[in-house]
């Protein structure tokens, strides 16, 4: 299907609401543009869109038999697959390994697992939570970031309540948002508010869902949780040249945060309309009691998996099912994937692939080697605005239009060129536009593709095209 230029009728793209949360939305302008015609009437196209959005666009061998199944059964199979553990990065036999872990090793390790996992939805959700419950190598040691990644994956489709308890006492989070350094035992000294505020503003309730007094109350109620004490201190060589040694902290296995009663607040607080002695559980329970929580997360999921400006009705419906399931994160995703808006014509190519999704799907399309793909990601991710384990700030990466700038597009194009240059042989591009783009091409992409006289050139056009950058 080729889209005729200016003449084609705008299909189903309603006016974008201006008040929705992300500022980029205001810049999206369907008025002067024709819409992509939607192929989503076909079940095959719906399944392809689902896999692009839910699995990085790679299809593990184990899932392949399911692909021609009905849309609903594909959802069941990716949701039912569970979360495969990645191979361990830090072996128990080498206790000082964790202390010597480099950020780039961690990035490579996760990328390798993303490229090879048999449970791609869990991996996609680990990535989602990585951008939601943020922490960064800029402030946190790689070992704690590694543990956090393991935890987010294990809880990626679990209950939100369990996830939030883990998040609050996750050693990387305790460090990144300073809860580990707080202390509410002396009423004259204000505790650290950093985690308390972001827990509500960015992780659960959203702006407007709480008052400043609630920030202060939660800061009191949560103080006392701190990073786990090391199992041992070991002397290691820290400078190869001089042979200088220094003691380092060693943990024999992954730990959660520890509770230090002498740093905690012993009294009652008034928090989100409840007064009492609230610890970790009390705070999380109050948050789960607010209708704003389900709605805030439903909207975030909708913006990243359905449309940059999801209909209010869609958000309400997903939130309702999420809350009714006792905040089951699997049900949250099922509600998103089965919502009518997910498969509506206007949602076709309504999302921009993140750099990771773009690079992984491009590498998979031309069957690039795992090792080469990983190195390309490390080289190009930052230029596209994304370095794993290093979000730009506590709010994570701005999705969709936030990925598009002159600089980031240039990096995407140059990546494609490098990717193709690095292939031992360029695979045939015959049928690639049907397989990867459902055959829906703009006039200019179609024309340029028709003019291309080598597989390399055809792949360059396809992978660099706006069509392939969208999902």
């Amino acid at each position, binding site marked *: 299907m080729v889209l005729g230029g*200016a003449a084609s009728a705008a299909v189903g*793209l309603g006016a*974008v609401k201006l008040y929705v949360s992300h*500022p*980029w*939305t*205001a*810049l*999206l*302008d*369907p008025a*002067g*543009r*024709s*819409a992509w015609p939607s192929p989503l009437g076909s079940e095959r196209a719906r399944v392809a869109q689902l896999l692009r959005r839910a699995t990085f666009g790679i299809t593990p061998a184990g899932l392949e038999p399911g692909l021609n199944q009905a849309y609903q059964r594909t959802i069941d199979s990716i949701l039912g697959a569970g979360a495969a553990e990645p191979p361990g990065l830090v072996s128990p036999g080498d206790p000082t390994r964790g202390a010597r872990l480099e950020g780039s090793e961690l990035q490579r390790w996760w990328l390798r697992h993303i490229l090879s996992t048999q449970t791609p939805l869990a991996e996609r959700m680990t990535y989602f939570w990585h951008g939601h419950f943020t922490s960064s190598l800029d402030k946190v040691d790689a070992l704690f970031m590694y543990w956090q990644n393991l935890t987010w994956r294990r809880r990626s489709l679990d209950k939100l309540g369990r996830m939030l308890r883990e998040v609050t006492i996750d050693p990387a989070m305790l460090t990144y*948002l*300073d809860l580990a*350094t*707080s202390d509410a035992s*002396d009423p004259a000294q*204000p505790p*650290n*508010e*950093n985690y308390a505020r972001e827990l509500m*503003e*960015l992780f659960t309730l959203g*702006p407007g869902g709480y008052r*400043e007094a609630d*920030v202060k109350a939660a800061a009191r109620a949560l103080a006392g949780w701190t990073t786990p004490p090391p199992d041992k201190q070991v002397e290691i060589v820290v400078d190869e040249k001089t042979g200088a040694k220094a003691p380092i902290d060693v943990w024999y296995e992954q730990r959660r945060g520890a509770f230090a009663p002498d740093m905690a607040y012993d009294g009652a607080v008034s928090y989100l309309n409840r007064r009492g002695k609230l610890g970790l559980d009390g705070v999380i329970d109050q948050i789960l009691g607010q209708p704003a929580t389900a709605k805030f997360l439903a909207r975030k999921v909708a913006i990243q998996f359905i449309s*940059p400006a999801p209909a209010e009705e869609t958000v309400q419906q997903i939130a309702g099912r999420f809350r009714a399931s006792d905040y089951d994160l699997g049900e949250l995703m099922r509600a998103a994937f089965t919502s009518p808006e997910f498969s509506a014509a206007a949602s076709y190519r309504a999302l*921009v692939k993140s750099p990771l999704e773009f690079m992984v799907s491009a590498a998979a399309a031309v069957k690039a080697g795992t090792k080469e793909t990983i190195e390309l990601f490390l080289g190009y991710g*930052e*230029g*596209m*605005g994304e370095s794993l384990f290093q979000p*730009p*700030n*506590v*709010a994570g990466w701005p999705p969709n239009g936030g990925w*598009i*700038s*002159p*600089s*980031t*597009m*240039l990096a995407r*194009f*140059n990546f*494609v*060129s490098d990717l193709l240059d690095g292939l031992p042989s360029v695979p045939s591009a015959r049928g690639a536009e049907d397989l990867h783009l459902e055959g829906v091409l*703009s006039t*200019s992409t179609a*024309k*340029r593709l028709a*003019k291309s006289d080598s597989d390399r*050139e055809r792949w*360059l*056009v396809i992978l*660099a095209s*706006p069509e392939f950058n969208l999902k």
Partner: protein
Amino acid sequence: MSGSENGIERIGRRDFTRAGLVFGVGAGALAAGYAAVPDAFARAIFTARRDGVQSGAVLVMIQLAGGNDGLRTVVPLQDSNLHDLRPQLAGEAVDKALPLSPSEGLNHNLGRIRKLWDRGKVAVVQGVGYPSPSLSHFESIRVWETGDPTRRQLKGWLGRALSTSYDSYGHPLTGCACGTSVTPGALRDADSTVAVIENQLSYGFAAPEVESAVGAVYGQTPGIYGALFDTAVATVRKTAAELQQALPAPSDSGVLPSYSNDTGNALAQALKLAAQLIIRETGVRLLHVTLDGFDTHYTELSYHDQLMSYLDEAVGGFYDELVQHGKASRVLMATWSEFGRRPQENVSGGTDHGTAAPVVLIGDPVRRGIYGRPPDLRHLDDGNLRYTVDFRSIYQEILEVHLQASAGEILGGRFEPVRFLRRSS
């Protein structure tokens, strides 16, 4: 909208429309129109306009991201309340501060900026904020970026300046973010094109056939992202070639002796690139750079000191380089941050989110002085400072006096003037 403003002959976007070269008036259509303007014609306009804007004023907005502690940037020297509120943080800050007056001093790591003060190149506006302040980073950043405390405006104030007072379509380098891969919110506006240059070294197409392929593919991209895509690609095609010609090959591996010995100083890297753009007369007018890391909830002493020295080295190096090339008279730097920090320190030796804080303006265009009222630590509002100068008063002065742009139209109102800039005779 042809006309003369600031002695500069301008051809507005509406001229393209009148000439029938743009196929619509909507923002997205206009972006498409830019890409669709016949090349030769676009080049002619481009050259003409570039001749015009070369004499124009340049603004560099320096974002101190994360919420800069105003009380450790411009330190109150005589206020005992500061010591009561900050038993750990106040002592050293006050003792070491570099005095600007008997009652105010600059952070001790701002030595080069202090020297610029001695030469009459620095203005400080105290107590800058806005009504009903948000203590959320992201809400408050949005307020500062859009210039709208009611949070209805979604376009950036510099983006609006570009679209109302400049014509960035003929010249995508007019507005430029350096040292970042994403477009800063302040420059965001679908009616203007903005260059975003993370790194000069990687800002070029890997191969000519890559450029020609994407040039053929992008231009009339359908869908809601069509305009964003096409504008980004058209901008990079125009500016990458331009910069390769204009800029010298960067010297050895990013070392910046005149700015900073610390290659971790990202602000110095960004301002070095900004200086090149200004010196080579690429036509830049509105620049945006960022120094991150000001969210000092924890052990603020060491973190904040380091950031202050980064700021000082970067600004000092940048100013010196402009002077060397005879460009300093045209360039105004202004710091901004989403909020200041809580006057009372917390238990972690840091400070939590606050409200009003000083804005520092640097460059030949400023009238040296300390404007506004010193922070009143005795009458806090729920523990935070009350603002005494609306941040839009700063924008207004910059737009009107420095850029000679229509401040009323861009800001949507008039604000109490704060006259920290020189008036040309």
